[in-house]
């Protein structure tokens, strides 16, 4: 982690995406450095979600290249993206509502115990780690890790998804509107978690409608308008919410 020149973690260059005649992304280039939280802002229909879906493997792009640590990568599916260390947390998180918190956290990467032919999960370890993670995400109430996801609130589910990304050391965590539908305490928990993620070496792309939340955590703001990037190096410490709003709406 001590390279003198910061090599970008993710570099999307000249991405185009069209749905039939509609040009959703036009020559979009986006760079995310290591240890960096990038805030992605833009009005509805600006292309934020499409850009994120391309990066997380949910939709294919029409043309353009994606590089990870300088290496060109192909992302054809969400599984590819996860394997590369790109974890996306959507508003309706991809969790199995019938399964417990612990089982969801480790789904697909279950820790095993005992001889291999027994195929036995280490449920004690899963429950313990899940319990610790839940505390770190700041789910204040005392929820046992054996609780099924179905009986959690939206914010709690969000927190579980974030905890999962954290635990498996994803290099890049994409948070799509993570603070929507969250209470004040839960929002603070998520924001604190994002900061903690950067401090422990993760990078994040943070998408939110609430500019104040973005200002609280990000290192750099990228603004999109009508499928293009119109600003990509706004420092939240050197500008104001009003100025950024002007950039988003395109009115001087």
């Amino acid at each position, binding site marked *: 982690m001590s390279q003198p020149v910061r090599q970008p973690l993710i570099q999307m260059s000249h991405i185009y995406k069209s749905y039939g005649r509609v040009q959703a992304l036009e020559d979009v280039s986006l760079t995310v450095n290591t240890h960096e939280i990038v805030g992605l802002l833009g009005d509805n229909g600006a292309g934020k979600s499409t850009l994120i879906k391309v990066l997380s493997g949910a939709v294919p792009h029409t043309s353009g290249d994606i590089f990870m640590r300088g290496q060109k990568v192909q992302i054809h599916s*969400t*599984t590819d993206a*996860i*394997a590369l260390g790109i974890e996306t947390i959507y508003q309706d998180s*991809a*969790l*199995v*509502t*019938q*399964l*417990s918190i612990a*089982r969801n956290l*480790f*789904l*697909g*990467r*279950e820790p*095993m115990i005992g001889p291999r032919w*027994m*195929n*036995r*999960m280490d*449920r004690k370890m899963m429950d313990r780690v899940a319990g610790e993670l839940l505390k770190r995400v700041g789910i204040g109430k005392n929820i*046992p890790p*054996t*609780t*099924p996801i*179905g*009986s959690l609130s939206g914010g709690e589910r969000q927190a579980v998804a974030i905890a999962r990304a954290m635990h498996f050391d994803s290099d890049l965590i994409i948070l799509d509107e993570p603070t929507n539908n969250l209470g004040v305490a839960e929002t603070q928990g998520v924001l604190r978690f994002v900061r903690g993620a950067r401090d422990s070496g993760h990078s994040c792309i943070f998408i939110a409608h609430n500019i104040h939340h973005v200002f609280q955590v990000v290192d750099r703001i990228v603004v999109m308008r009508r499928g293009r990037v119109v600003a990509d190096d706004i420092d939240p410490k050197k500008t104001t919410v009003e100025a950024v709003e002007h950039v988003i709406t395109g009115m001087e």
Partner: protein
Amino acid sequence: MGGVSRTTDCVGLPPPPSSPTRGGVLHAATIAGAPLSEATASQRLFANKFIARPEFGPLVLLVVELVVFWSINHDFLSPGNIGNTLAFTVELGLIALAMTLLMTSGEFDLSVGSVFGFSPVLMWTLMNSGGVPMELALLVCLGVAGAIGYFNGWFVTKLKIPSFLVTLGMLLVVRGTALFITDGFPQRTWSAGGHWLAQVLVGDFYIGGLRIYMSLFWFAIAVAVLGYLLTQTKVGNWIQASGGNPLAARARGVNVNRTKTGLFMLSSMLAAFAGVISSIRTSAANPNSGTGYELEVIAMVVIGGTALTGGRGTIFGTVLGIFILRVMRNGIVLIGVPGLAYNIFIGAIILGMMALHSWLERRHQAGT
């Protein structure tokens, strides 16, 4: 069965919180008076969680059945009757256990009844007219059943055709094959007599006046293994995830297609195994046997608390469901209700249990 019930905690609800020093609280209550309500509240919480478990309703129903039938006719619990009821119950039960896992993964299999009839026909045809030794014939018919299951799984997962249609088609193909190769006549089976394999599969012995078939042990093994598989293993986690939210499961790297295909194979092979056991016990391999079993088996599974839509399943519940239906069939005949009225009771039980499960589900979702 106690061990199985203990291990199903993750399928239903979290285990009740251990109430620390209840005695202490009660002691304080007698002095202060106020914390008394707290103690009863924690007891009520414990009771609530127990009641909210999907296996609770079926358990109560089974106990009620046993008590009612026994009080009307004491012969109901005689060793002779218990032995008779158990003999066929466990054969059908083997299919229901495999169906529980398959339904937890979000699919079901209508072809199990015809595989139940077809496999022994195949085995006895090989032995009678092909001179194949019994060991090999059994392996061949389990292999063929596995292939049938693989085919079902392939159609469902690769061609994305609903399992209802795929397995309905397979039901007709398999049943038709059984009728075709036998010209509709039952196969000779009495040559099995003292064969060691027949003894291992379905040999019988007496404990006191109770006649026990070896198939009961096969059933118990299947309960233990499949219960363990569903609740303790990675495969079990994948089965539940495949049924609960296949897209999310796939995104996490769960091989949903392989999981489901494997379960289709398991369900076919256990149906074949049950069919062979049944044919040896009754000394008959009838190409028409097993007709309608698929629906009775599915009824057993859903009565036990497994969700028809997938994601949640319980082996212990299925064991209860198996006994609820078989005890009902046996009991109403014993207490003098006409056997033709059997289906009325079964239908009423299914409807009642579904209403109970959906009510518990809604209350649980709203309550937390």
